[in-house]
């Protein structure tokens, strides 16, 4: 199976965006980046990602709103895509149930190694 290849990375911090993009691209993923929620929705419409890595705290539109729209609004073509919240906010065990329903994963950036990202992606591939 081809697995997940198309990844949309929505991250406002330029350094982290660069690091994740570089790492994922290096591992052979097709990566498109967006700098905030609005940009992310726009890019999703054009790119039809299979996986969205979504930061929460971003200007213009935050990750949670973007998640809701991606998940429920057909126009963005992501209702079936895997969406993982990739954030440094809060902790994974205390996510709002409504958010939990819409997301496929919640990752605290500071607590994972880059390699763990690949494992997460792989876990979705295995589900397929």
């Amino acid at each position, binding site marked *: 199976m081809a697995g997940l290849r198309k990844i949309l990375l929505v991250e406002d*911090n330029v*350094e*982290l965006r660069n*690091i*994740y993009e*570089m*790492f994922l691209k290096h591992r052979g993923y097709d990566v498109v980046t967006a700098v*905030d*929620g609005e940009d992310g929705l726009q890019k999703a419409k054009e790119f039809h990602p299979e996986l969205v890595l979504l930061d*929460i*705290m*971003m*200007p*213009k*539109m*935050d*990750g949670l709103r973007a998640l809701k729209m991606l998940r429920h609004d057909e126009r963005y073509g992501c209702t079936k895509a895997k969406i993982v919240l990739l*954030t*440094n*906010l*809060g902790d994974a065990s205390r996510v709002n149930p409504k958010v939990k329903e819409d997301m496929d994963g919640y990752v*605290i*950036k*500071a607590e994972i*190694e*880059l*390699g763990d990202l690949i494992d997460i992606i792989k876990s979705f591939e295995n589900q397929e």
Partner: protein
Amino acid sequence: MKIRQKFITLLLLIGVTPVLVVSVVAYLSFSNALLEKTTDQLSSTAIKQEQRISTYLQTRQEEVTKIANQYDLQVLIRQYLNDPSEQNKLALKTILQDKKVEVSLIESMFLTDLQGNYLVSSTDDVEKETVRGIKEPGSGEDTSVSVRNDWSDGLSRVYITSVISVNKKRTALLNVVFRTDELVAIVQDYTGLDETGETVVVDDQNKSLFPLRFDTDASLKIDLSSLGIQSLNGGKYHTAIDYRGHEVLVLSHQVGLSDWTVATKIDTSEALASITLLRNTMFLIVGAAVLVIIMVAIYFTRLFTRPILEVSRVSERIGRGDFSARADIDRKDELGTLASSVNTMGRNLRELIGNIESQRQRLQVILDSTTEAIFAIDADANIIMANRAVVNLLYVDPNELVGRNMKDVFKWQHGMQDFIVDYNVEDVHTYASLQYVDSKGSQRYVKLIVARIIDESYAGKAQAIVTIHDETSSHELENMKTDFVSMAAHELRTPLTAVRGYLEMVQYKQRHNDPKDTDKYVNQALKNVSDLGGLINNLLDVTRIERGTLTLSMSKVDIASEVINAMSDLKFVANERRINMSYDGAEANCFVVGDGVALREIVNNLVSNAIKYTKEGGSVAVSLQQEGDQYVVKVKDTGMGIPAQAIPHLFTKFYRVHGGLASGSSGTGLGLYIAKSIIERHKGTIGVESTEGVGSTFKFSIPVFTEENYKMAQQATDDNTDDVAGNITARRNRGWVTKNITR
């Protein structure tokens, strides 16, 4: 009946009753006396008249009897009766004429036989008609008296008939006619009688014998039976109607030697005139007396009731709550005492009420000064009272709430769900963290305490006291703190993630023997580590500010160079975002007393904020000017601006304009708080002017350097340096300390 009427009535009774009694008694006795006097007068007149008439008649009878008993006359009568010749008749006539002359008052004399048949007369003119009706005096009587007016001249005359006995045998009747002048004179002597007094003489047929006083034209023999003379008992009077129709008092006496009766009478109106006068006078006196008594009664009533009424009025006013009412009565008697007692009572009440009022006001002040909103409610949760603090919850005057129902005033929510508060609790019930939306649309968080009123005597009016503690601000502060912790974690994790990422990249490169870019990654990692340190220092600064242990290294500092240095640190960031950054001001020699590092950091903070919130292609203009004894630094951007409602909170701890976590913008919300604290330590001010969508201008001012300022600042620094690691210089020097260590 009011007291005044009662009093007047009483006084009138007391005053009028004796007057009336005395008047009635006096009237009765006086009127009796008057009546008695009148009747005495009538009686004595009647007696006197009767005596005179009797005397007259007696005299006349004696005279007649004397003639009748003369022997010569008896002889001649016997001769004539034996031989009624002209000669004997003439002899008789002659002797009668002789006898007549002997008694001056005799008008004429004539003889009849015992049957009344005319025999002979002293004169010729009365011969025929006057002999009719002559009767022999009753058995045993020798004479009889009658009054006749059967003469042609119409005048009445007194006839005295006497029996002539010859040889002890009744033989003939001697009739002597007297003129009545003397009798009339007697009867018409009204001496002793008043103007309407009159004496009448009647025979046994109640016929008047003499002319009447008030009807001189009337013929004799007028019937006077209406006077009821015959029914009178001697000496007693009675009232009757006389011949004129007048009401009269009548008194009568039988006349001796005849069947006549003398009656004296007087018009009642005259007889009682003095009594009427007495009565009228009495009425007048009594009336005047009553009038005087009424006036006196009114006067005394006023005298006594005025103070009573005044006191009563004052008491009533006091009763109604007008405690300033005073009775103005200056008297030495009990009423004066009463008035002054009432006044004292009024004063004491006023004082008491004043005390109660001031106590009530004190309680009200306490109640109104309490920040908790307090409601007193009845069993149906209707508001009976509310204190001033409710204004902060509901934005309405407390008085407007009275009568409304708690259930209508507050729509409670708990955890975003509608919630029904039971106001009818048994004891005390506390509802923590209730919410409602106030009239301005803001979410409010409160703690609600419903307490049953214990005092049974008050329970009828109020059932419970509801205390509402507004926890909105502390709730917000709590939220801000929670947000801050999350935010701080987030802000710390971000550079940490970057460091981790960079290091992993380096590791990866090394494993693959690819040294390209590794230096760059390491530098980036170091930069992030440095950011992390700065962040931690910021957090520590806040703690120090809170604890008052933030130490500044005060020296003579050139603010111009600090501003320029801070800007040059950010030149790269500005360029990257294509923001035009400009500086307007002196290049050097703008001295202040301050901590250069801290000031540079503030400028850095303001400028980097300006860059952060300004769109690409915008501009950030920094200026430095001296205004009076202050240097003023302004940082003006063309950014999004700050909402007006946010400006007052901008410099408070943890406050973030765009609502913290939910907004998606990052930052701890500490920069401006720290800046404000530090600027204030420099005796300066910091502020902002902003228009949403146009841009913001942050400015701060610091006093121009003077020796005096410098000394004061040094002094303050020495006093404050007790936190070894806690100063900004140390931090800037990457953790190693060169000065300001005092221990």
